[in-house]
């Protein structure tokens, strides 16, 4: 048992445990806070996979941005004191069967496939520099399109969420 193994299992169990709380909790506020731990654990897995820049990005955008948005949504659409019954689940049995079958199929496929794995470590120690170069050379078109998509999304979100004046 080296350190890598211990940290991997810690983050993997945290991600799956928090993910289960998100999915199975009846209280939507508990689910939102469990989502925080799930995102944090996934960022830890990114660090183990030599993706330092992406781990920080995950913390900044998911934990700092998307999660705050989600909690805003929870606060604005639910009366927090009384837990809304509509956060409960429907069609549990077929969904359990379908999800379990999906999980079994995916895990079986991942387990049985003979993946092409490189033995030596080829990624750089710090990925930020090289990622920036790639974004502005070979991936410059998707990069520009993504910037336009973000602009349109911001303008659209502001438009949609604005309270209309009752004339």
């Amino acid at each position, binding site marked *: 048992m080296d350190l890598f193994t211990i940290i991997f299992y810690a983050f*993997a169990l945290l991600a*799956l445990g928090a993910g289960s709380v998100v999915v199975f909790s009846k209280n939507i506020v508990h689910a939102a806070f469990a989502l925080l731990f799930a995102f944090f654990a996934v960022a830890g897995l990114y660090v183990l996979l030599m993706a330092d820049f992406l781990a920080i990005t995950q913390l900044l955008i998911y934990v700092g941005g998307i999660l705050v948005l989600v909690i805003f949504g929870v606060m604005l659409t639910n009366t927090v004191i009384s837990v809304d019954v*509509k956060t409960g689940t429907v069609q549990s049995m077929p969904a359990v069967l379908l999800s379990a079958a999906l999980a079994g199929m995916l895990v079986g496929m991942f387990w049985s496939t003979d993946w092409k794995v490189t033995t030596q470590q080829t990624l750089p120690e710090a990925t930020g520099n090289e990622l920036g170069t*790639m974004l502005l050379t070979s991936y410059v078109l998707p990069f520009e399109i993504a910037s336009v998509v973000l602009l349109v999304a911001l303008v659209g979100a*502001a438009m949609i969420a604005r309270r209309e004046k009752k004339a």
Partner: protein
Amino acid sequence: MQEFLNWLKTPGLTHFLIVSGILFSLGVFAVLTRRNAIMVLMGIELILNAANINFIAFSRYSTGTLDGQVIAIFVIILAAAEAAIALAIVLNIYQNFNTVNVDEFNRLRD
């Protein structure tokens, strides 16, 4: 059995893929069963995270280049845009219909 224990002790590509597969199934379960629109959004975020783990795991263990990480950055960008738009739509629906139950949205206008 001994072989399986040894496999457990050395995390590699398959371990990360299995974690992401289970996380993906959890997200699909949330999307299928939850009737609160915000809970459905949380399930979608779990699914996107599971996909990102796959991209980065293959980038580390299989291709050995950073292309997978660049794709993961684009996934995060689109997830941010998706969350902003979706929550704006949910808030607007809540103002108009006073509910966030996805089964009750059956009209596009008042």
